[in-house]
């Protein structure tokens, strides 16, 4: 599913080069559940951005389903983000002026589903995350845990193969966290490939495989 070869990413900040990734070699098979753990600033989010086709590496290669992502046109990368990858972020990143249901429908809109198809699938996804009664609520009218469940439902909108989650429980309390984490486990059981980023060791244990990233380099835990 995922293969990276010696990925490197540097940022220029205040005329100084900052190494965010320093040669990442990572392989994730279809159906795997990998957690990537590491302290703040170790390059977790940078790696996830590249895996999610949101950013390009400076050096090295990234193959997604065997495709060299660097060579893809913007349009193709947008299509990958739309239907192959589902994102879950720490701060939810729901569209603030769209209702829960509309947020879930957005990737389907970009995919080109008809309103009827979108509506039906959104209702079903809302049911899956047990939030059918909040379909018309705005994100500001939902709790953090509810927002994250909507975000997970949205990530599943176009039935992607790969779920990328960047500290999805970072803003949630204990109870909401465990609900959300259980969802990732269930999704993985249903066959989805999951890459979960966290800085919490107990959360990392939920995964089949745990990796640790330090200073832009991965070690097996």
């Amino acid at each position, binding site marked *: 599913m995922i293969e990276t070869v010696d990925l490197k990413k540097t940022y220029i900040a205040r005329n100084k080069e900052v190494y965010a990734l320093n040669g990442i070699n990572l392989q994730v098979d279809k159906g795997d559940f990998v957690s990537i753990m590491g302290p703040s600033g170790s390059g977790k989010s940078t790696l996830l951005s590249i895996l999610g086709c949101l950013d390009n590496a400076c050096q090295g290669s990234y193959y997604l389903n065997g495709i060299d992502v660097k060579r893809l046109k913007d349009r193709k990368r947008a299509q990958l983000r739309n239907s192959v990858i589902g994102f879950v*972020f720490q701060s939810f990143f729901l569209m*603030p002026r769209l209702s829960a249901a509309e947020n879930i429908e957005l990737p389907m809109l*970009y995919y080109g589903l008809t309103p009827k198809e979108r509506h039906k699938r959104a209702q079903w996804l809302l049911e899956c995350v047990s939030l059918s009664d909040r379909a018309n609520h705005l994100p500001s009218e939902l709790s953090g845990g509810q927002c994250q469940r909507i975000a997970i439902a949205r990530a599943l909108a176009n039935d992607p193969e790969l779920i990328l989650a960047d500290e999805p429980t970072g803003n949630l309390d204990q109870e909401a966290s465990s609900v959300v984490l259980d969802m990732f486990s269930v999704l993985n059981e249903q066959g989805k490939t999951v890459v979960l980023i966290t800085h919490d060791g107990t959360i990392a244990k939920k995964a089949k495989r745990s990796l640790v990233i330090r200073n832009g380099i991965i070690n097996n835990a």
Partner: protein
Amino acid sequence: MLEHINMAFNNITNRPMRAFLTMLGIVIGIGAMVSVFSIGQGGTVEMNKKLQKFGVNRIWVYTGKYRKTESVLKLSDATLLENSISDAQYVTPSTYKNVYLEKGNQSLYTQLSCTDDSLIHIEDININWGRFLSENDVLYSKKVVVIDENLANKLFLGPTDAIGQNIYILGNSYKVIGVEHGAAVKQSAAEYKAYIPVTTYASSWGSSTIDEITLTTSDAKKLDEVSDEAIAVLGQKYGTTQMFDTYNLAKELSIADGILGLFSNIILSVAIVALVAGGIGIMNIMLVTVSERRQEIGIMKALGASSGQIMLQFLLEAGIIGIFGGIGGILSGVIFAYVFYFFSGVMPVFSTSVLILSALFAIFIGVFFGMYPAYKACKLEPAEALKSI
């Protein structure tokens, strides 16, 4: 598409005051454009109507440059012109005399137009009581007179009373056959106005000449052509073209048209400047919006929105601002034109093509000036955009 429009509306109504102020530039520009066009068009119609009454399509033929010499034109010349010039619509012989109209011991100084029945077709004469001179009146040199309302009130109990009664002109008795409503006397020492058949004048005064012959054309563009023809016809009869001269309003008409056009152009330039300023306002606000919504753009990209879809989203917002600015502009333009009508009496003429074109122009301005901000939005790097704030 519908969803994109819906979201665009959502985003605009989220900040109503900002949206309103952004639209204002377009409202002012389109409003100015619509009102200038419709007032200008109304003004042209009004002016043409007035000039038509005054004689835009009329040619005066008389003797000598600036009428300085004794007239040699005869009644028969009018018939000659009528028969020889095919483009002539009405040919009217006229002579003007200032005389005293008498009844009982009253005597009023009056401008007397000695003419024929065709005059009513070419001048703004409103006969509200009785009738104007007829073909028979002229043919048989009848001693009949049409007087104005003031005369009827002074000499009789009023217009209805005047009809059928007699008055005296230079000792001859004339029967009143019609009364003209509220006529104003132009360029004359006399205070009152009356009409008699030109043939009656010829026999009563014992005069064989008339002051002028006027010709009208159905096509105002043929004024000069018909003038030349008239001179040529008279020249052939009298052996010289030097004796006669003509006058028409073609020059005055083109000057008036020019002034109206200049006036319209000045205001239109102002309107276009306002529209460009309005467009830059839209661009400015859209740029602010794009930087405010960087993170939202990042989310849209993460969810798989293509550059085209993001571009569409922002162009729609700019276009909707343009549409509503345009509608507001058309409404305020129409209202302003009517307010102007209230003060000036110039009835505006609204043409659908102008209204549709202004609406389209407003949308164009919105979309055109929204293009750069929309482009900036769709070119944002998704990872960078997500990180902001």
